[in-house]
């Protein structure tokens, strides 16, 4: 008995690393890789219990190319595109300022940018909901000052939706751009100005090209979740238009149609990623033509 216990103990201690690795890997595989893999398969394969066979169908993907779905994709694409563009215009100057102009407490200021987006998405939405509604702060303040003759309803418009989207997503672009800008060798910038380039030319020819990996990462980090967003259009946009995120949500939670939901989810990644890949190659080809290699 004692010998057996000892043996068990020995096996146990020998296999300890294995036992240590298992839980996290199992968790990862069980809740992430297997379901996402199966959902991918399920988006075009269906098991028919009666016949005990699998049936292949691309009808859910084919449905995406119907005018109705294309309109939704177009809506989502435009919203994500505008959000990404405005986010970039806000995030790049901010990251640039943090890296080159602020000497002390830099991490603190970076943290300040991240903090609001760290709190619950729904609370950020709620805050804008509260500000923009007809009897909300902004409308009442403008009314009391006398700029507008009666309270305006800023909520439920494209503008209000865009404000919410940019507010929630642009901090995610600041971080990667900042990380890249900070690593740029300062001597390169000095060399550029020593050689007579103005600050603007240095930014255009040295700093921006060097920071492009961070910019691309930031564009991804904003564009992909923005494409699948559903809560912001619902509350700040007044559900006037349908977006791809709404489609995913309704397929899973309202219709309980797993196959359609899976197809919607995967195409929801595929469209933004494909957009980016195409864009990337487009830019690359353009650059090559400029250099005259092609």
């Amino acid at each position, binding site marked *: 008995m004692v010998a057996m216990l000892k043996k068990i103990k020995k096996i146990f201690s020998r296999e300890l690393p294995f036992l240590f690795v298992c839980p996290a890997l199992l968790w990862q595989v069980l809740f992430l890789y297997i379901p996402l893999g199966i959902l991918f398969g399920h988006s075009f394969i269906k098991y028919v219990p009666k016949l005990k066979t699998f049936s292949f169908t691309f009808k859910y993907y084919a449905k995406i190319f119907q005018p109705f779905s294309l309109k939704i994709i177009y809506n989502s694409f435009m919203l994500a595109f505008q959000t990404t563009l405005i986010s970039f215009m806000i995030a790049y100057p901010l990251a640039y300022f943090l890296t080159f102009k602020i000497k002390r407490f830099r991490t603190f200021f970076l943290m300040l*940018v991240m903090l609001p987006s760290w*709190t619950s998405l729904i609370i950020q939405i709620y*805050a804008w909901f509260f500000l923009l509604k007809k009897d909300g702060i902004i409308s009442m303040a403008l009314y009391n000052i006398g700029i507008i003759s009666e309270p305006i309803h800023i909520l439920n418009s494209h503008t209000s939706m865009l404000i919410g989207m940019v507010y929630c997503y642009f901090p995610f672009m600041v971080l990667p751009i900042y990380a890249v800008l900070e690593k740029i060798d300062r001597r390169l910038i000095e060399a550029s100005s020593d050689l007579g380039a103005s600050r603007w030319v240095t930014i255009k020819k040295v700093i921006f090209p060097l920071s492009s990996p961070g910019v691309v990462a930031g564009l991804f980090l904003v564009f992909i979740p923005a494409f699948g967003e559903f809560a912001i259009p619902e509350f700040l946009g007044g559900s006037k238009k349908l977006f791809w995120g709404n489609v995913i949500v309704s397929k899973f939670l309202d219709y309980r149609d797993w196959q359609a939901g899976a197809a919607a989810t995967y195409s*929801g990644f595929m469209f933004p990623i494909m957009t980016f890949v195409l864009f990337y190659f487009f830019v690359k080809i353009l650059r090559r033509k400029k250099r005259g290699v092609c």
Partner: protein
Amino acid sequence: MVEKRNIFIRALHPVFVYLTYLFLYVPVFVIAMFSFNNSRYSVSWKGFSLRWYAELFKSVEILDALYVSLVVAIFATLISVLIGTALVIATRWWKSWISYLIFYPNVVLPDIALAVGVLSVFAFFKMPIGYGSLIAGHTLIGLGFVVPIVRSRFVELDPVLTEASLDLGATGYQTFRKVLIPLLRPSLFASALIVFTLSLDDFLIAFFCSSPKVQTLSIYVYSQMKETVDPSVNAISVLLLVCSSIVALILCSMKVVDRVIHND
């Protein structure tokens, strides 16, 4: 001419940055201000009061939601730190790209995909969604942060330290307890804080994985927004904000943020 434009941009740049900070913090301050407003209607300022904070502790629904949020956050934190650290310790010989490759999707994939995945596991096994699915989803997000953070500290450690401890006669467990854990403590603490706030503030996973009976605070706020909004929602928001700000300040002072940025 070019000089002139440069000066103009140089003057405008700080203004632009301050405006960005203003844009970020105006909603937060307005919410905070109106959580102290002594009026049921949010329009006008009727004096200072702590009425809505008191209301929080009277409402059964809010207390239930708070309870669910806390239980889920605590379990998700404990599980992800425990199994994440175990994995890191046992996989020292892994090349760092392997663990990044395995755990990167948790951070990079949109939350909606993680949520759909967890939901489908529970649906497949016909398990009721609720605490289980919420903890599963939040632990998944947590692992994506725990593994890189703890690993970045762990690979910095000198392997001689553990070898010395073993040579001096400590058992494996003693070495783990008295040498490894104290050395890893800052990173464990930091990652636990991050997972805790992420779980507390999560909306998307909770939206898919909570049942009508088991609701988190985020979902409570969501359902309130669909109907008429009670001003106590302002108070909840402020409490959550304060909670994440404190965590952010702690992390900031621990220089965790620096480390995470520079390792990526």
